[in-house]
């Protein structure tokens, strides 16, 4: 039996994979560490290609046992496999794809997202972190920015906030937020609830969400 947390993380990953699996367009996507990486497990469409910013297009599934090649890793340093038609390139070419707008979507984790679509996901200023990775490049360069995160922190604090208190990675860049409770989209720049998980009522959701949000006229059940 999966733990509730694994079940929730899986739910988020599946919901985002569904987004890509339903695309009629070829999608080049980049997946951050954590829940975003899990999205790869549920991709079913041949139109979806995974880019890793350390220099690969066509990332396959995680490598296991004898497949492991320490020189073939994703940006989270996990050993991965390659898919037919994959290719390798240097880091300037890789971020050229991202900055140039050729990566259609990025799925990222976040510490906070606020009502203006600002994302804080690169540093908690606790004196122990020093690193930015590709986060700023991805949120500013990728077409769609999809935030994948558990709705609240481990201590129960809201992560969808009025205004980010942590250092911001990119301003107004979020397009979609998927948590275990709900799916939000930024529609006309307004944070809008579009799907809610069965059994979650709107009042509970509002309590767990610091930011005010609109409710879509087309609000549906969380798609699975």
């Amino acid at each position: 039996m999966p733990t509730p947390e694994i079940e929730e993380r899986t739910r988020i990953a599946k919901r985002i994979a569904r987004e890509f699996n339903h695309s009629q367009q070829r999608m080049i996507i980049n997946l951050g560490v954590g829940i975003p990486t899990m999205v790869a497990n549920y991709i079913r469409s041949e139109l979806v290609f995974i880019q890793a910013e350390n220099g690969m297009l066509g990332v396959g599934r995680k490598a296991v046992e004898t497949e492991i090649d320490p020189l073939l890793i994703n940006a989270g340093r996990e050993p991965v496999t390659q898919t037919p038609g994959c290719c390798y390139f240097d880091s300037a070419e890789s971020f050229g794809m991202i900055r140039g707008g050729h990566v259609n979507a990025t799925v990222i984790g976040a510490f906070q997202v606020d009502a203006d679509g600002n994302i804080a996901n690169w540093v908690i200023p606790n004196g122990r972190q020093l690193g930015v990775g590709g986060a700023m490049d991805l949120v500013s360069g990728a077409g769609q920015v999809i935030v994948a995160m558990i709705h609240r922190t481990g201590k129960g604090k809201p992560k969808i906030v009025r205004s980010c208190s942590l250092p911001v990675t990119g301003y107004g860049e979020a397009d979609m937020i998927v948590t275990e409770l709900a799916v939000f989209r930024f529609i006309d720049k307004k944070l809008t609830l579009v799907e809610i998980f069965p059994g979650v009522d709107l009042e509970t959701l509002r309590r767990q969400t610091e930011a005010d949000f609109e409710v879509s006229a087309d609000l549906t059940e969380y798609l699975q």
Partner: protein
Amino acid sequence: MKHPSKIVGLQEAIGAVESGNRIMIGNFGMSGLPALLIQALVDSGAKDLTIISNDLGTPGKGLGRLLRNGQIKALVGNYYNWNPEVPEAYFSKKIDVTLLPQGTFAEAIRAGGVGIPAFFTPTGVGTDLAEGKETRVFNGRTCLLEKALYADVALIWAYRADALGNLTYYKTARNFNPLMAMAAKVTIVEVEEVLPAGALDPECIVTPHLYVDYIIERKPPHADA
């Protein structure tokens, strides 16, 4: 969802071009020129085009046909002395021409592709081609600010494609083709041969498939079109 083929007919591909578009076309003289696509562009009759290319071929040949056919409003490029009809059209004010040093031209196309809107370069400082351009000193050396180039459509040549649209090139026919593939909203490539996905060495792919929208496969009867 199955991956649909990018391999299309010439008519469908060239339908992406509209009058008034900015079109990048890969070539260095006749090397690396997408000859079938240029023929199709001539046949399309699209007008008021801005052609962004190294040169304009020779009179009535290669890209030179677009000028004879009255389809060109403006040129952005590097070297037109191989086609005297270009200076003639420019000095008689029939077309606009923006000249860039070849390296600046190449870098500006790459910049357009990789999301760099402008860069500084020491090339051309103080020359006629620097007129009106901002200057700034870096490391004791005066540099010009140059802007990225973008296009609506790129027509390029490559040697081989795989079914996904990954491309490899051939000798000096590579030239501007991989750069232009990155800098246009729609990229159409003319190739000698299409292989199955996975048939090209992943270490040797020059243009990854995400830059390629349509593929035209040359057939021997058209090879010298």
